[in-house]
């Protein structure tokens, strides 16, 4: 049997994989991208909660012990299913020490040195600022409540073409209207135009080192409908491997490879952060929203607009203050969480305390259109640890799609619990003021904490004891393996992380190209970027002919 080879094998097609694919392919390398999920595009993105539609096809929900992760599972990864909020991380984040008593980020990286890379990603996607006319009712309500409490509130920079947006709030199932500028509109079509090959439904299981210093990558084919089924597999040999399977999967692949690759750095599968995320659900008193905040939609309603909008559009950044102590700095972002993926976790005030079930919860559900969800992004303590990997993938799959049980355990420290408590109190202060709402956090009892932004499970740093990667994103002790996804981010960011993950991937590219050159790959780095004005959306092969 002939051996399949490539120059660069990229695992995953989300932010970390797509950016790497673009630069290495445009630079002249032969690039192969293996993506575990299906290849979906506008006509596949359904407005339908039925199991098996894009709402479950494009997602991965892995329940762990104390932490569950919701992440993308399709070509384009998280960019296809996320809410496209793209703020930069505040300056103090890069100085964080966490619990290790010294700066967690590499000395080479701070906000100033990362800003040029933020600029590049912002231009390629592109990231736009929103006007107040773009702000949904839910965002307006949150801004008004913040103002009522003497706070500021900011429109969040987004990767959305508001001219095409219908405010349908189905964007977690993929954008039907091509308004969300996912990676299917910039880096990925640029990479494919330059010759990169994307193979969907290929789940990488492990790596093996070759005598020449390259790697053999082992994958399984995943059934396109029932992800519990794999149908054979294969191997590809590459001179360089870039892991970008997401912070819930990259460390699992490395752990499974340890028997053949040799010992992994201590930080592989440790220091996981859920980006400090936690949700609160407020039930708005419509009368008070009108009387206190002056809200009026023009149709007799003050609010009752939970369903309308485009995810998070307004954030409170008053506590993003570097003079505050660590674990007391956070953002509070208005969010939409659709039915099916978290409603069960919202708590109602019950006779015996907060409850997620029963008649009190039913009464809360009757008020669903008056819900306002607030997303807290605090500084957690990187306390997540991955246990032994499952036989395949990153979870024991339970359902046909989406739902599985994974090896992550997360036992929040007093620092993290204190940060959440402070943020909970702040949300209450803003929203319960003047009787505007009653608000409670989501329960952590059922599926643990819940993150949509897994980070740090294979992080960069200067200290080999607490970081798996050097500041060039190369895996310590395993030359030629790089990690460019959210697992490389050292710690929680206090804001949505996609732009920071992407900026770090952009920053890593010149070094990875140099490493590729050193391994004999004919590739160069010219610093080009996909032009959003001229790039055509990526379409599945067979939909239209792809560029030769």
């Amino acid at each position, binding site marked *: 049997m002939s051996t399949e080879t490539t120059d660069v094998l990229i695992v995953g097609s989300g932010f970390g994989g797509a950016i790497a694919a673009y630069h290495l392919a445009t630079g002249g390398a032969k690039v192969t991208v293996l993506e575990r999920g299906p290849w979906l595009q506008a006509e596949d993105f359904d*407005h*339908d*909660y*039925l*199991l*098996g539609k894009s709402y479950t096809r494009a997602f991965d929900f892995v*329940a762990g012990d104390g932490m569950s992760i919701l992440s993308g599972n399709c070509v384009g990864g998280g960019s296809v299913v996320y809410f496209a909020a793209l*703020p*930069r991380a*505040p*300056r103090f984040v890069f100085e964080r020490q966490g619990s290790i008593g010294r700066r967690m980020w590499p000395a080479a990286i701070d906000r100033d040195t990362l800003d040029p890379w933020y600029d590049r990603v*912002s231009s390629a996607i592109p*990231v736009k600022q929103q006007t*107040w006319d*773009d*702000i*949904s009712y839910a965002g*307006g309500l949150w801004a*008004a409540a913040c103002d009522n409490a003497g706070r*500021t*509130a*900011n429109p969040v*920079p987004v990767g959305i073409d508001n001219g095409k947006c*219908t*405010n*349908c*709030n*189905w964007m977690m199932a993929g954008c039907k209207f091509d308004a969300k500028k996912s990676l299917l509109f910039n880096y990925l079509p640029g990479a494919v135009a330059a010759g990169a090959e994307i193979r969907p439904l290929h789940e990488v299981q492990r790596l093996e080192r070759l005598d020449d210093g390259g790697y053999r990558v082992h994958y399984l084919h995943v059934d396109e409908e029932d992800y*519990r089924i794999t149908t054979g597999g294969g191997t590809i040999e590459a001179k360089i491997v870039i892991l970008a399977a997401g912070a819930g999967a990259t460390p699992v692949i490395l752990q499974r490879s340890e028997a053949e690759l040799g010992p992994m750095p201590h930080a592989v599968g440790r220091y996981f952060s859920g980006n400090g995320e936690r949700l609160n659900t407020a039930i708005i008193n419509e009368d008070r929203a009108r009387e206190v*905040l002056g809200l009026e*939609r023009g*149709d007799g309603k003050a609010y*009752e*607009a939970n*369903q*309308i*909008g485009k995810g998070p559009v307004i954030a409170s*950044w008053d506590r*993003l203050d570097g003079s505050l102590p660590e674990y007391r700095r956070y953002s509070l972002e208005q969010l939409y969480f659709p*039915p*099916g993926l978290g409603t*069960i976790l919202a708590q109602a005030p019950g006779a015996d305390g907060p409850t997620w*079930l029963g*008649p009190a*919860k*039913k*009464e809360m*559900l*009757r008020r*669903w*259109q008056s819900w306002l969800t607030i997303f807290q992004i605090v500084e957690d303590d990187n306390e997540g640890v991955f246990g032994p990997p499952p036989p395949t993938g990153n979870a024991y*799959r*339970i*359902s*046909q799609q989406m*739902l599985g*049980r994974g090896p992550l355990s997360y036992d929040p420290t007093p620092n993290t619990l204190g940060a959440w408590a402070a943020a909970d109190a702040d949300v209450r202060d803003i929203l319960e003021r003047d009787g505007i709402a009653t608000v409670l956090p989501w329960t952590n*009892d*059922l599926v643990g904490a819940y993150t949509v932004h897994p980070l740090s499970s294979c992080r960069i740093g200067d200290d080999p004891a607490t970081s798996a990667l050097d500041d060039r994103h190369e895996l310590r002790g395993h030359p030629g393996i790089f990690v460019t996804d959210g697992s490389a981010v050292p710690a929680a960011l206090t*804001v949505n992380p996609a732009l920071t993950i992407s900026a770090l991937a952009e920053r890593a590219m010149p070094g990875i190209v140099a490493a590729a050159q050193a391994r004999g790959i004919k590739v160069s780095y010219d610093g080009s970027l996909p032009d959003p004005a001229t790039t055509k959306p990526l379409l599945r092969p067979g939909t239209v002919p792809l560029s030769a």
Partner: protein
Amino acid sequence: MHPVTQWQDDERLPQPREDTAVHSGTSDEQVKTITLEAFADTIVPGEKRDPDDRAIAGVSTGGGAVQSGALEMLHHPATGITAGLESLVGMLNGHATAYAADKGITLDETVPPFVALEFDDRAALIKILTAPGHPEKSGWVLLALFCNMAFDSAAHISTHDAIAQGHPGLLTIGFELPQKDGLWRFKDYSYGRQFAKPHPDTTATGSPA
């Protein structure tokens, strides 16, 4: 008629179904059905389908998880829990028996033990089974999750069919109707006003400094 008004027309609510309204019985299938219905009704309660309904405790008005199709949901092969339902039913009734003994509750033996519990005891038992540290927690959380999904998103049937059928859960949460092509678009979505001052340290790119 305004779409939302039409959607809230009570005549579109499903009528009680004799085939699922199992009140008592001894066959394994009847025990399974009535026990799972009682579990689902504890997660999102509804009103009794008729006065003799034993599965539904009747602590809420309107449709709950049972009327929303929780049993159909649990039997949908995509969930991955269908094969385990019989075991869960047996375990649940075992836990109910132990719970009743612990609390000094005498159970009506004409129905399965979990069904024989009053609503508050059913809820208390489910909270025990789903609490952090319970060795069977994963299974009970999954069961609760799918019962809740039947109500809040009708994920066992097409959302458009659910709307056409007057799905009790979507009706209860006030889910808006789609446009004629089956897609949701909201022409009116913004107050169009600046409600707050931005943070003074916002950069020119709109990010935190």
